């Protein structure tokens, strides 16, 4: 039941936040904050209430008949993987509410309505175990996100929002066709009409059909992740969205792509994924390098941070398609830590824009003397982003590289160059914005107490993940064993032992 509550609280909280704006401008913020906090506490109860036997991977389930004519169930379930994603969602949800506390001054009620509903959509995506329900939630989280971008975004918001919507909708429809193809092929071989994830696992497919269906799924998740040729919506959407929108886009929406690959693509289509591995790994490495190079050449601070996402999420793709224990653990760590570090960078850039009304690196410089706390936080998250040992991102990317080394040495070497390149863009950003002379003689207020609170939370989170990642890996382990159990042939395609 907790699972239903998690979603219902967000949906109702959104409605109440929307209505309450009639009476007070503060009320929607507190209602949203409260609803997400309650969800966070509830999901902690999932953790304490989970069954102790290690073999049972699912913590909790809800399974209702929804549309019996098609064999559609309203089936939510949570395992270690979903649980980690839930915690990330609620943490970043709180950050998103806090960081728009002063940024959003107009249409506050509708803003929080959309914010809560996009979170509800994301939670449903992480919980859905019925492919129809999954697609339903997948599409539904787009609409509030679209509104967040086109109503409260920056100058080119309509262009960016529309592009975001068209890219995801097009790839999403291809996934829907793939889901339907799988549904009918499953019926052909078993006589049962079902969208149930656990039943569709292990459907016998001809190799051509399996590859085609897998590609339908892959495209949808690759657009979200993003994988390089399909990434062009990302810099626009991240740059034009309001801060809370960027935090949710980078921290959560991209993770739904990684989650989908991990949960659906490889377990449902192990043979096709096996054949596709070389291409996926190559795309991952291209993404890592390309994102880093593009980030290096940006002058718009927010765009710079957006491109670092392309680079970091390349590691996630690399880890997932390497499909061994180390690489998968690395991928999940990268997903979580990227959510925190990039989310924090977006909050900082949003704070800068609120103060300076510009995101142009050329107009910055010497900000350290003006705003020491903000600059120090920025330094911290830049270091996290470039993979400083002791912070979470390092653990994730290091594990991915360890895992992918077993699959392909050459690609691992190239991927490592990506980490090297991240040093350049992160340090360049620090140098241009915060060090040097204050040529524009900026005089700006430093972090407010609210912002200090956000930063402290995220810094502590990254330090904890960096020094003691074991709880996360332990939580993920049973779920990972289950996923790997589905894939009997480990897709180690490029292995070349010395």
């Amino acid at each position: 039941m907790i699972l239903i509550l998690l979603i219902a609280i967000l949906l109702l909280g959104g409605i109440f936040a929307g209505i309450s704006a009639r009476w007070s401008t503060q009320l929607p913020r507190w209602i949203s904050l409260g609803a997400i906090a309650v969800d966070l506490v509830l999901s902690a109860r999932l953790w304490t209430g989970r069954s102790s036997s290690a073999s049972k991977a699912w913590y909790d389930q809800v399974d209702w008949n929804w549309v019996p004519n098609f064999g559609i169930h309203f089936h939510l379930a949570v395992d270690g993987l979903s649980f980690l994603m839930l915690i990330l969602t609620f943490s970043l949800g709180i950050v998103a509410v806090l960081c728009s506390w002063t940024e959003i001054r107009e249409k506050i009620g509708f803003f929080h309505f959309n914010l809560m509903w996009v979170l509800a959509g994301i939670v449903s995506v992480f919980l859905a175990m019925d492919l129809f329900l999954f697609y339903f939630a997948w599409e539904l989280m787009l609409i509030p996100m679209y509104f967040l971008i086109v109503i409260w975004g920056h100058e080119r918001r309509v262009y960016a929002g529309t592009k975001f919507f068209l890219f995801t909708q097009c790839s999403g429809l291809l996934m829907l066709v793939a889901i339907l193809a799988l549904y009918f092929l499953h019926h052909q071989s078993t006589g049962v009409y079902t969208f149930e994830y656990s039943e569709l696992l292990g459907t016998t497919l001809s190799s051509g059909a399996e590859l085609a269906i897998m590609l339908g799924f892959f495209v949808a998740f690759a657009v979200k992740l993003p994988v390089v040729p399909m990434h062009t919506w990302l810099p626009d959407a991240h740059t034009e969205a309001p801060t809370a929108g960027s935090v949710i886009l980078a921290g959560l929406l991209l993770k739904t792509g990684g989650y989908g690959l991990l949960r659906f693509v490889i377990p449902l289509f192990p043979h096709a994924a096996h054949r596709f591995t070389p291409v996926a790994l190559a795309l991952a490495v291209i993404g890592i390098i390309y994102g880093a190079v593009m980030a290096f050449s940006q002058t718009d601070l927010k765009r710079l941070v957006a491109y670092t996402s392309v680079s970091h999420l390349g590691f996630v793709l690399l880890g997932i398609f390497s499909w061994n224990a180390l690489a998968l653990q690395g991928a999940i760590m990268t997903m979580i830590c990227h959510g925190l570090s990039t989310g924090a960078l977006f909050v900082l850039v949003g704070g800068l824009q609120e103060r300076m009304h510009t995101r142009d690196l050329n107009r910055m410089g010497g900000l350290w003397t003006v705003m020491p706390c903000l600059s120090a936080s920025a330094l911290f998250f830049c270091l996290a982003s470039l993979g400083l040992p002791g912070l979470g991102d390092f653990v994730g990317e290091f594990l991915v590289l360890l895992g992918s080394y077993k699959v392909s040495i050459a690609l691992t070497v190239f991927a490592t160059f990506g980490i090297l390149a991240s040093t350049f863009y992160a340090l360049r950003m620090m140098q241009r914005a915060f060090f040097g002379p204050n040529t524009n003689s900026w005089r700006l207020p430093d972090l407010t107490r609210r912002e200090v609170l956000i930063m402290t939370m995220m810094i502590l989170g990254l330090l904890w993940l960096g020094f003691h990642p074991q709880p996360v890996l332990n939580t993920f382990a049973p779920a990972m064993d289950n996923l790997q159990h589905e894939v009997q042939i480990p897709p180690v395609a490029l292995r070349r032992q010395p």
Partner: protein
Amino acid sequence: MNATDTLALLPLLLLAGTAIVVMLGIAAKRSHELTAGLTLTGFAASFLSIFAVARLVPRQVTSLLLIDRYALFYLGLIIASAAAVAVLSYQYFAKHDGQGEELYLLLVLATSGCAVLVTSIHFVSFLLGLEVLSVSLYGMVAYFKGHGQGLEAGIKYLILASASAAFLLFGMALIYADTGTMAFSSIQNLPLGRSSLGLLLPGIALSVTGIGFKLGVVPFHLWTPDVYQGAPAPVSAFVATTSKTALVVLLLRYLAAGTQQSKAVFFLFSVIAVASMCAGNLLALRQNNVKRVLAYSSVAHFGYILVAFLAGTTMAADAIAFYLVAYTVTILTAFGIVTVLSTSESDAADLEDYRGLFWRRPVLASIFTAVLLSLAGIPATMGFIGKFYILASGANASVWPLIIVLVLTSVIGLFYYLRIVVTLFSAVPERLPSIERLRWGSAFVLGGLAVLLIWFGVYPAPLLNLIRATIGGIN
């Protein structure tokens, strides 16, 4: 024809009777309230009689009409949508001082034409229903004589509809020459796969012209934007929903088997479907007039329906039924919003009339957003379940090329729906056209339609069960 036959025809007879009563009512006392009231009572009586008739079916009445569960389901849909149009007309004509009474008369006549079409199994009843519908529509489209656009639309519709009816008649003659009968079963029973189709194929092709014209599919779509734009908003709603529904039903009875038996017929409809999906969505991209956008989008939507029609399975018939219900609900709501926002001078059709609507009338704008998302096929609306059903029936029949075209063109479609959504939510303009209060009738209709739109989008099982019980196994 005996008493039971007459009883089976009750819904149609009640519709025809309503037309006479309304006419006499207008002659006795010219009153807008009275006329609208009589019309709605007639529709309600006819709708309720469907449940009484349901025990008698299936029953063939003469060789012209067949009353079965399939026909009754669509009769219900047609009468309900016509009643909604009547309520919207009441709101619309209350603000025009002119004489709105005769519109109800024409509306009832057109509805009875549609009712004949959905029960028809013979070319004679087909033509009879079609002409009753068309002739009433000429009057309805050009209802405002002083209106340049309305007249233009009416004349255009008159000329094109007559021409297409002529093609249809010629097609019927050719089919009769070949088969010697005018019952639809002649085409279903004849092996279309025979090596030489003789006059049959040209006959079918010409008759498709007549049907395609009413459906507004490419290449017979040229009238749609002008008629949608020029006609009064409730009339556009009727043209878009009720009359098209009736023709789709007829098409299913007439040629559903034909597409599966004859490669040529299948190919003919594939071309029409693909062209409609592409042209409809592409032409809508550059429109700034909401009514014209809805017109082009309807071209595309009937292309989608043809995809299911071509799939030709039992599932496809169900999918079409669901899609037609979803489309009817969605479009009626859309034109309901247009009706409410229209002023006595002009219909609210320009995109600018909708700018910032959300911040002035949040409920209306939210409903309109739901409509647009439903047309775009976004989840939690009926439109999504409809599109899902069509894709499912297509996948079931493995018509992959058509499905891929559907997916890609509907992404194009998304673009212009989003454009309207953005306008609804953008900043409120300086100049504020006043918006009148909703009358309780149209508020009830709009609210009810919006609830249906979301309710069956989230929980479609009851409607799916009804469709499976009534439509299932028609082919």
